């Protein structure tokens, strides 16, 4: 190798070493732990695939898988639709648009715990803002969701809350929208395309790489959903919001089963990898990259 390469590597070395020590090594170690009985405070003891076998028979594991899939399948597409909608609105030339852009982005930078405490109040069935709004619409009392105190409404409540962060995606969509050359719209308009057709045939294909990116990132984040349920519901009521990662965390730190938790982490990794590959493959024909 050239001397320049060595010098470059030397300059990168703090990062490379950090990555090796604090990410790569723990990842490899966690695979070993997943084959062990490892009660954290004691040394790991090899048990073969026992943790993986146990997972298949753990009702709560499957329940957490189901909850997490419901969350991902609902929150990711909804988040993208709302984000795109916001981006289209924020793409208008109206006075004060920069203020609106800031306002819609703001929830993204609110720390998770603060956000969660806020939403506990928002989702309060008696005095919360959301049910107050529903009452303002004169919906019958019997329709009022019990949100976090009702096992059927707790998950929709958390999904609704996740849309609060749609402003983060919206900023990316906005950047993509502003990249779409205006002459393409003009050409489409000359050809007689209406607003819906222009959106469908010009806007969407041109921002499709960003849609794919946010979709995949949403998927990865969604499968790792943890904080909201940890802070707001502890997985309840009746395990309605027991997410995969919450079950994983409890296994490790309240049940002292780091081996089982590590095995769960590897299964999660496989699921995320597989879903990402499926999404990438499935989207190949629909995503257009600029030549």
């Amino acid at each position: 190798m050239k001397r320049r390469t060595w010098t470059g590597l030397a300059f990168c070395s703090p990062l490379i070493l950090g990555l090796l020590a604090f990410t790569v090594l723990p990842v490899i170690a966690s695979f070993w732990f997943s084959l062990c009985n490892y009660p954290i405070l004691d040394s790991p003891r090899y048990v073969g695939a026992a943790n993986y076998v146990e997972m298949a028979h753990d009702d709560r594991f499957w329940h957490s898988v189901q909850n997490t899939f419901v969350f991902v399948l609902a929150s990711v597409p909804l988040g993208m639709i709302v984000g795109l909608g916001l981006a289209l609105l924020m793409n208008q030339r109206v006075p004060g648009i920069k203020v609106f852009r800031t306002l819609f982005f703001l929830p993204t930078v609110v720390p998770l715990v603060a956000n969660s405490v806020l939403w506990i109040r928002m989702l309060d069935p008696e005095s919360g803002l959301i049910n107050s709004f529903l009452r303002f619409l004169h919906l019958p009392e019997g329709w009022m969701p019990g949100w976090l105190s009702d096992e059927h409404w707790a998950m929709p409540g958390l999904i609704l809350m996740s849309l609060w962060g749609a402003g983060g995606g919206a900023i990316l969509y906005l950047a993509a929208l502003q990249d779409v050359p205006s002459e393409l719209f003009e050409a489409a308009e000359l050809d007689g395309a209406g607003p819906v057709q222009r959106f469908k045939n010009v806007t969407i294909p041109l921002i499709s790489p960003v849609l794919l990116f946010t979709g995949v990132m949403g998927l990865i984040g969604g499968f790792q959903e943890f904080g909201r349920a940890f802070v707001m519901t502890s997985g309840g009521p009746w395990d309605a919001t027991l997410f995969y990662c919450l079950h994983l965390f409890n296994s490790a730190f309240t049940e002292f089963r780091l081996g089982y938790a590590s095995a769960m982490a590897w299964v999660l990794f496989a699921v995320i990898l597989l879903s990402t590959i499926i999404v990438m493959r499935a989207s190949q024909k629909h995503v257009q990259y600029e030549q």
Partner: protein
Amino acid sequence: MRRKARWAFAALLAVLALSGCLPKPTPDPHVITVWQPFDASFQPALDHLVAEFERTHPGIHVKMSFASNDLTSSQKLFLAIAGGVGPDVTFVDGQQLSEWAARGALADLTGSFDKSGLKPEDFWTPRWKESTFRGRVYAIPWGADPNFAFIWNKDMFRKAGLNPDKPPRTIDELDRDIDKLTVVDSQGFVKQLGMNPWEWTGANSLFTWGYAFGGNFYAEPDTTHPLGTVTADNPKVVAALEWMAKFGRKYDVRKVNAFSSQVVGLGNNPFYAGKSAIRLLHVSQIKDLKKYAPTMDIGIGLIPAPPDGEYPTGWIGGWSLAVPRNREVRPEAFEFIKWVCSSREATEIEATDMEQFPAYRKSQVFDRIRQDPVRGVFLKILENSKHVRTLMPVQGYYMDQLGRAMDEVLYGGASAKEALAKVRVAVSSRLQSVADELSHHAVEANR
């Protein structure tokens, strides 16, 4: 120049790489590190405690820092112990002790305790039990929380046509009073509630009512069961959960929870708003009464119990002080523990600044507490109670399973007997694997 820079780089990297292999720095003999789990409102009291210790122990400094402990887990502490580091002293909740001791998280304090002049009978018995595991001392108890006192809003009793000076004594009377005190609108929504039996979330409510019904959650160790026996489906615990389920069916568990969904213990609790007539009060919430309901006419007494139940009833919780296993028990550290848990000055700060009850039953503060109309009731509960949550090295899992059984029964309509039998089977099997681990270690140690 370039060559020099490269050598400098190589040297830097070598230092970075080798720093992990250096021997651990020896601790400063004059400083003890302590990890505490309390929220910021306790900070002034903790500062006072440390200042008082340093004043009375010249030459020793205490460095106290926060390590979260949500009663089921203390991630930071476990990782520190696993990594071979950690504080000289840590707080540990009483119910965690068996589990932490069995897992080898804590140092054996028996030797230091025996030399200290303290005796087991200096502490409230349930709290002392929570400080030992298999005959060895692993912590010194600091606080004693008598759970719970029964408080009621006298005006609401009057309005409901009840005698405000005659609180319910039995569960039948309690049911009858709750019915009179509860208002439900035409849609079935709770507008005013007599009492929410599961206001203390998860297993804590079941412990409370299970003990009041005369039940028990575990049997003490014997020769065949060296770690004790799980008795979650004891008929009286089943009866307590059935009683809660009956209440849940009558008023709809979702509507009761929607009504009382406000965070427990804060000023927006429905009791303080005059919308809920009865609640079970924790000793740390006495100050909230003054703060959030200064003019409310409140009665305070004991939790009702069925005729064949336990009256007065209660279980005792509280924090203790311990030493993580990979630290030697330093004399200064044990002196700190002993001082905090039993000295005149420290128990005074505990009772006055923190409004807690010391676990040290000989503390002078109890003379004053006995005269107090509110605290005196808590003292009566403390003096009469035999129980703690449980004393098993699977406590976190047990609590979790009990909470889940409650959800299954309250939300899912499952039978209390079956749900609790499932808990017994699941927790017993975990307990067995802990017992296996322990005997495996004993065999290894004997080799």
